[in-house]
């Protein structure tokens, strides 16, 4: 098989699976609950992928990711209810709003490293959560916001579970493609060099602060997109959806899947969202099982389900990546231009 054809086939297979097989199976059962689970899984795939960029690739341990998710969701919900905008407007605006907040957060915290950075993001995440919880005139506080306008795009009503699934799937796949091109490229290599040794990267002429802020903003943007998807598909948001345990859940997805590996983050998200659903018959014990899965995956698979090296190998072989070379010459995709 030629190296040009293979990426097309892989992409086509993923598209058929996500846009063909899954909706067919969901349609066969035709229960709105199953669509909800599928949407939730895709939204968390997007969240895990956005955190993968900043925590896995750029190595900035982020403990407040759910806050950007929340900023996006609240931006979308408020624009949809108070300003009456449709999904076509709220989606990009939610992303931009979350990216703007992410840049504001990044400016003072980017000079911190390791655990100090993690603690700062935890604190800021909690502050944003408190704002959502207590700024009652705007966010309605703990009561949350009901989004009654549904999901309309270019005048079409897409609120039916089946069509909403397609919207979520298309947006998630497009975002994943962007994150894939960012993290498997020279730009991704530069971010990885920050993770390994940012002083060294600085000495090599990379603008480390700018790279960190950029990766943070991009990650915030996609978290905001995920928030808008959640607000429009669930129809109801409340601060509890964006609290610290959610940040930890997203971090757990990235770690279980493999830090620095995009396919790993996707699989980690699917495992941690779908496992509790599969285990629903077990009832009360399912969250204990999730904790146990997290624990044993760290203990037994410290590199994650798909470790970074094998993930890079896989992506390069199957998708090509955005490196200049064809991916066949050894070493042609190393370095930073």
């Amino acid at each position: 098989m030629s190296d040009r054809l293979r990426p097309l086939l892989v992409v086509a297979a993923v598209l058929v699976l996500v846009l063909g097989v899954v909706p067919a199976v969901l349609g066969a059962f035709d229960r709105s609950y199953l669509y909800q689970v599928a949407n939730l899984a895709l939204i968390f795939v997007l969240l895990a992928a956005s955190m993968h960029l900043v925590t896995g690739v750029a190595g900035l341990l982020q403990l407040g990711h759910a806050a950007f998710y929340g900023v996006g969701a609240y931006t979308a919900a408020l624009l949809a209810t108070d300003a009456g905008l449709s999904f076509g407007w709220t989606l990009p605006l939610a992303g931009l709003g979350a990216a703007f907040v992410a840049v504001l957060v990044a400016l003072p915290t980017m000079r911190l490293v390791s655990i100090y950075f993690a603690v700062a993001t935890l604190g800021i995440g909690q502050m944003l959560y408190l704002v959502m919880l207590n700024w009652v005139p705007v966010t309605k506080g703990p009561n949350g916001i009901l989004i009654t306008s549904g999901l309309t795009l270019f005048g079409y009503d897409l609120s039916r579970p089946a069509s909403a699934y397609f919207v979520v799937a298309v947006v998630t796949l497009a975002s994943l493609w962007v994150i894939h091109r960012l993290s498997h490229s020279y730009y991704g290599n530069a971010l990885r060099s920050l993770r390994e040794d940012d002083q060294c990267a600085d000495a090599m002429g990379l603008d480390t602060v700018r790279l960190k802020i950029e990766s943070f903003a991009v990650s915030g943007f996609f978290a905001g997109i995920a928030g808008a998807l959640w607000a429009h598909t669930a129809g109801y948001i409340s601060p509890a959806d964006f609290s610290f345990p959610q940040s930890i859940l997203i971090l757990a997805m990235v770690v279980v899947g493999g830090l620095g590996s995009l396919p790993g983050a996707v699989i980690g998200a699917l495992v941690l969202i779908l496992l509790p659903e599969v285990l629903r018959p077990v009832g009360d014990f399912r969250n204990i099982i999730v904790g146990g899965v997290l624990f044993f995956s760290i203990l037994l698979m410290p590199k994650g389900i798909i470790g970074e090296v094998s993930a890079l190998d896989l992506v390069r072989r199957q998708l090509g990546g955005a490196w200049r070379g064809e991916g066949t010459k050894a070493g042609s995709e190393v370095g930073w231009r």
Partner: protein
Amino acid sequence: MAGTNPAMTLESVGLENHWHESRGLFGPNLPVPMDYYLQQLAIGLSLGMVYALMAIGFTLIFGVLNVVNFAHGEVYTVGAFAGLVVISAFAPPLIVVLLVVVAVGALAGVGLERIAFKPFRRFSDEASLKSRAMREATLMSSLAVSIVVREAVEIGFGSQFQTVPLDRLLNSPISLGPVTIVSGDVIILVVAALMLGGLQYVLKRTNVGLSIRAVSSNPLGAKYVGINTDRTIIWTFAVGSMMGAAAGILVGLYYGAIFPSMGFIPGIKAFVAMVMGGLSSIPGAVICALILGFSESIATIFVPSVWADMVAYGFLIVTLIFFPRGIFGGARDRV
């Protein structure tokens, strides 16, 4: 999350509201009587002492292992529930309850170390002891253990507030001149002071304390001079968790609020105190915990009490930006 994942969505909201229930009486434009300030200072002192007890556990463990123990809040919860079980089963005097809770806390600490930290300490050289991989692995494993513990407690007792026998609540009023405090304030102050004194004694006058200080100053050097670092680490967890568990039952009886996710908010506050104090300085952590307690209780005079948590996070961010080494921290290369 629309019922898909109830345990991940937190019930800590209940704690925040309960924690500051009776405060925040005066709006910004009303004159505030002097007594009220004094009263808030008394409350702030007991709040700060609780944070201090929690922060010491974090600080000790960070000192010896250079990792953050995210399950520390669950030790606090376990302490409170152990106390509640003992109270409802035998109704012993408070001092016995405290002793049992402290013992349970020590056991919980040892168990936590064996399960969440020991398996990841495969090599004993300094580079891997302080490596990022080890730090992230233990951070996640302690989180996983905390999820499992919280869920187990929730299955055992239910997620709502537990009923504490009314006569065991530490809220009988005591008048001190113009100020009225409750017995809980005094008891928390006394117990915390005793435990801090005891900790100082253990650290400075006993062999265990000597080895804890040695390991936290240089783990490899401590090993070279014949200190059993593994045993020292277990001791550290036991001592730190005793303090956390005691704080849990004291707060539980003070506010009458014992529930499975009660450890989360105090855990974060103690974490903030540790960072403000410079990560591995015990006096720093205690002083910062007291500052935190005082500022929160004073803040409730001026702003609605639900915003009081903002004070802690504000302190955290300001500290990290302007005093990145912590107010009492030693010199570090980079933070």
